[in-house]
């Protein structure tokens, strides 16, 4: 029925478009996933060519993101090798990204370099971040505590926002399951800089149908209402650039939970937050740059469940989180092309909520340095990337004994060996990383454990990259090994609540493969990974969970993106994600079957007297796969979305 409903406007649109199509600017008409000249600032904290990075890194730029059938940052991450997203049910549902099977709390998510993993639980709902403000998404895998401190045990996702907007943009979106979206933005640009502002509105019923034990059901209590305003700008000064980004978001959504009965629950969550960041980038001397950043984040999370009552009181939990951060760094390049960055960072995180005891405030101070030492041995170009970071973390608490301050030293060293410069390279990296226990783990009123220790990990990468040149394939192969000791898991205690303890030893080992190929107006990108992530210690003799795959970590997974730009005004893209069999119990007896989800998008642009109109039609889950990413959380079947955007340039 929904599909039929869409046929007419689609056919009408396709009929009209060719006649109205106009050529676009030459620089914006070719899709490429190869990005041979792309630069990552996340892999070393120094601007580094992707091809020279010591750690496996990927960049998805704005143009690629706009063309592909992607709904949020989570969809971008899911295309990356070694990444998996735990999706609890489509639009608006919780979506947690993990790299290398190590869990969402071990994936550090940055917004313009600012840490988003909260001190409360270290988790980031990557489904809540719009793609409209994204300039690029950088995903770097491996232990990166030597650059970013806590949480980066599996890798880092850095969302870099754009500050550039046309004078006026208006977008409307309409799709299945009650999805509607509207956005209005405006930007001005002058000799001294740019300013922009955008307001967005999105709602969805997300009431897709699914099969439940042979009974057709419709997802209930899964509505989403998301409103946000983003503003920012760039001020060009004599020898420096000052940038500002502010984001205010209010999300109200149902959290229907796992499906064990036809009623699906009535719990709801409302998240409100504001983020402001200011960055200064100054050219202090011809070879020296200064950077400084200030960030502030405040938010309230509110969860209510009318079906969960203690006595006559309905469950309503409210948490207020405040985060302040500051950093400054100096980047210098010597005449012998050695580049180094050194800096200091500080942050304060505070959490208030009835479920958390002691009103914790976390004060963190860090100093870091990272260096790129190029060495040329005849035709072989060797880059050595040593890095070192010191973190001090102090929790100020009330009414209880504070845990010991953490003093963590996180070293790493990476190598990149250009055996055939520009063609064949070997790279490797070894790093020591750590994860600080969260407020929930330490101070949860009913079961927190203030005696928890940090989790430590050793991460090793070794890879080979081959690039046959323009118009030819490029492939990368990476082996990795992460060894986490003292991993924190929730265990039963003497009372009625569980409590976290440092009791697990986890090793994750695997191989990631990536291939990229550009040919004329076609661009192909494929990734595959094999991974064995397991608990290696035995809690007791005969522990049946020993050496078993961690839950929800597939042994095999992969992704494919294919983009075609047969005309300057038209792109057709496909994104397919394959997730292999995943166990959802620790003894590996219950498993979710492998699934393949294929999304398609057609994007067409017309320009008429300065008015640029973009149509994007997305057919999501085109093969109508019935699947669950998380057990008992059904996912939507095949559905359509249509977006129309108008821009005045």
């Amino acid at each position, binding site marked *: 029925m929904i599909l039929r409903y869409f046929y007419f406007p689609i056919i009408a649109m396709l009929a009209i478009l060719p006649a109205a199509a106009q050529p676009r600017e030459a620089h914006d008409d070719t899709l490429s996933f190869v990005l041979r000249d792309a630069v990552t600032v996340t892999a070393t904290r120094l601007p580094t060519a992707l091809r020279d990075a010591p750690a496996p890194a990927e960049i998805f730029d704005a143009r690629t993101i706009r063309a592909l059938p992607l709904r949020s940052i989570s969809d971008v991450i899911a295309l990356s090798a070694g990444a998996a997203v735990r999706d609890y049910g489509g639009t608006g549902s919780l979506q947690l990204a993990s790299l290398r099977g190590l869990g969402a709390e071990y994936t550090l998510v940055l917004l313009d370099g600012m840490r988003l993993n909260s001190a409360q639980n270290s988790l980031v709902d990557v489904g809540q971040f719009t793609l409209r403000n994204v300039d690029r998404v950088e995903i770097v895998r491996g232990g990166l505590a030597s650059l970013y401190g806590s949480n980066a045990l599996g890798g880092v996702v850095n969302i870099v926002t754009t500050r550039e907007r046309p004078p006026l943009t208006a977008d409307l979106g309409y799709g299945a399951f009650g999805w509607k979206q509207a956005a209005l933005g405006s930007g001005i640009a002058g000799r001294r800089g740019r300013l922009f502002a955008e307001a967005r509105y999105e709602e969805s019923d997300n009431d897709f149908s699914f099969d439940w034990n042979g009974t057709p059901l419709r997802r209930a209590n899964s509505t989403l209402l998301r409103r946000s305003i983003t503003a920012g700008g760039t001020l060009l000064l004599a020898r420096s650039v000052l940038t500002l980004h502010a984001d205010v978001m209010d999300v109200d959504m149902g959290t229907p939970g796992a499906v064990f009965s036809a009623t699906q629950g009535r719990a709801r969550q409302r998240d409100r937050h504001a983020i402001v960041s200011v960055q200064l980038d100054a050219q202090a001397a011809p070879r020296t740059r200064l950077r400084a950043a200030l960030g502030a984040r405040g938010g309230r999370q509110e969860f209510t469940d009318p079906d969960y009552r203690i006595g006559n009181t309905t469950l309503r939990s409210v948490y207020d989180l405040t985060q302040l951060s500051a950093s400054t760094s100096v980047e210098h390049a010597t005449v012998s092309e050695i580049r180094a960055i050194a800096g200091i960072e500080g942050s304060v995180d505070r959490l208030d909520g009835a479920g958390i005891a002691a009103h914790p405030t976390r004060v963190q101070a860090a100093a870091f340095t990272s260096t790129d030492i190029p060495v040329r041995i005849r035709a072989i170009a060797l880059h050595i990337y040593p890095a070192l970071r010191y973190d001090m973390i102090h929790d100020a608490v009330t009414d209880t004994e504070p845990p010991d301050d953490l003093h963590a030293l996180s070293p790493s060293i990476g190598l990149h060996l250009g055996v055939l410069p520009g063609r064949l390279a070997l790279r490797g990296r070894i790093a020591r990383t750590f994860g600080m226990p969260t407020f929930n783990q330490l101070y949860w009123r009913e079961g927190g454990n203030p005696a928890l220790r940090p989790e430590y990990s050793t991460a090793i990468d070794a890879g080979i990259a081959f690039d046959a040149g323009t118009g030819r394939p490029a492939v990368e192969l990476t082996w990795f090994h992460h060894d986490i000791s003292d991993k924190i898991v929730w265990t*039963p205690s003497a009372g009625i609540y569980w409590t976290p303890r440092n009791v697990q030893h986890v090793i994750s080992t695997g191989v990631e493969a990536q291939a990229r190929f550009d040919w004329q107006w076609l661009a192909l990108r494929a990734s595959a990974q094999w991974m064995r992530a397991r608990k290696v210690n035995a809690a007791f003799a005969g522990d049946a969970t020993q050496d078993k795959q961690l839950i929800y970590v597939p042994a095999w997974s992969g992704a494919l993106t294919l983009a075609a730009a047969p005309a300057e005004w038209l792109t057709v893209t496909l994104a397919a994600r394959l997730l292999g069999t995943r166990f959802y119990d620790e003894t590996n007896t219950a498993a979710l079957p492998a699934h393949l989800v294929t999304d398609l998008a057609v994007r067409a642009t017309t320009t008429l007297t300065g008015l640029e109109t973009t149509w994007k039609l997305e057919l999501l889950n085109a093969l109508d796969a019935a699947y669950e990413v998380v057990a008992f959380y059904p996912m939507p079947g095949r559905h359509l979305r249509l977006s129309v955007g108008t821009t005045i340039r």
Partner: protein
Amino acid sequence: MNRIAVFILGWMLVLTACSEDNGTNPPITPTGPRGLYILNEGNFQRGNATLSFFIPDSNIVYNDVFQSVNARPLGDVGNSITLHDGRAYLVINNSHTIEVVDVNTHVAVRTIASPPGASPREITFAANGLGFISNLLTNSVSVYDPSTGTLLGDIAVGANPDGIAAAGNGVVVANSGFGTNNTVTIIDGVTRTTVATLTVGDYPTAVHALNESVVAVLCTGGYGDYNDPNDDTPGGLYIIDVPSRTVVDSLGLGGHPTRLARDRDGYVYTIHSSGVTRIHLASKSVTRDFIPGNFYNIAIDPVDRRIYLANPLDWVQAGRLEIHTLDGTKIQARDVGIIPNAMVMTK
């Protein structure tokens, strides 16, 4: 069934089991020997509650019986089992259902759907045949008519009702309040109305009928501020005469006991964090750590004079059924499902 027949059947099952070479469960034979149902709770939100069946005479454990016989999973969080009229009522808490199983064939004959969000915990049957289901999150007791298979309505009780048991036509409900309450509600099973609310100790969780007019109520004791052991209140046992609606006796147990079972020798049993506690009702003598260990639930087979203990191991993987004699001597331990919980002899 006479014991010889059970013995023969048991050996048939053993031989069948031995013929299996793939390590999986032997097939279930629908002949209904006397055995122990073990409702394995499963991991929360993983939908992996299972039913195990242990036949003492053949010494065989059949795991995942419900799935094997009915070709569908049991649901999420198996909480309790009650026998009534040849059927086992398996309360599946987070699926908000009660599966009614024929104890001879293990075939599910009915699924009772609790009211939305009810979170059923236990079911008991009054002398008039009606079932009464405690609904943890709706502060109510649902009335079930087994003759029609329908719910007749809800009765409002105290906060977060948990354990429930009938003595004659008097139904006693433990209003747990998740530790914030200290009352039990008595329901007249005939008029289906509440007739009394009695004060007992903090955090009443379990109710066990001692005879047709007397029940024992176990109070776990309050935790107060969970991180402050100094403000805890101790657990205790309360004896209630249901017809007179009176607390007739009580006994402090200390700590935070859970679960309640009894034998025919005048003892009741409960579980503390360090093991099984045995209480002689007449003398009020309490033996802590009568059987030391980490146990989640307990059942007594008065016929074979066995104590069955559910050991959840690490609460993640398949747990163990420990079998002891009534004097506490351990006989054996068998692998069952994940987080073995409620147990009951089928006959």
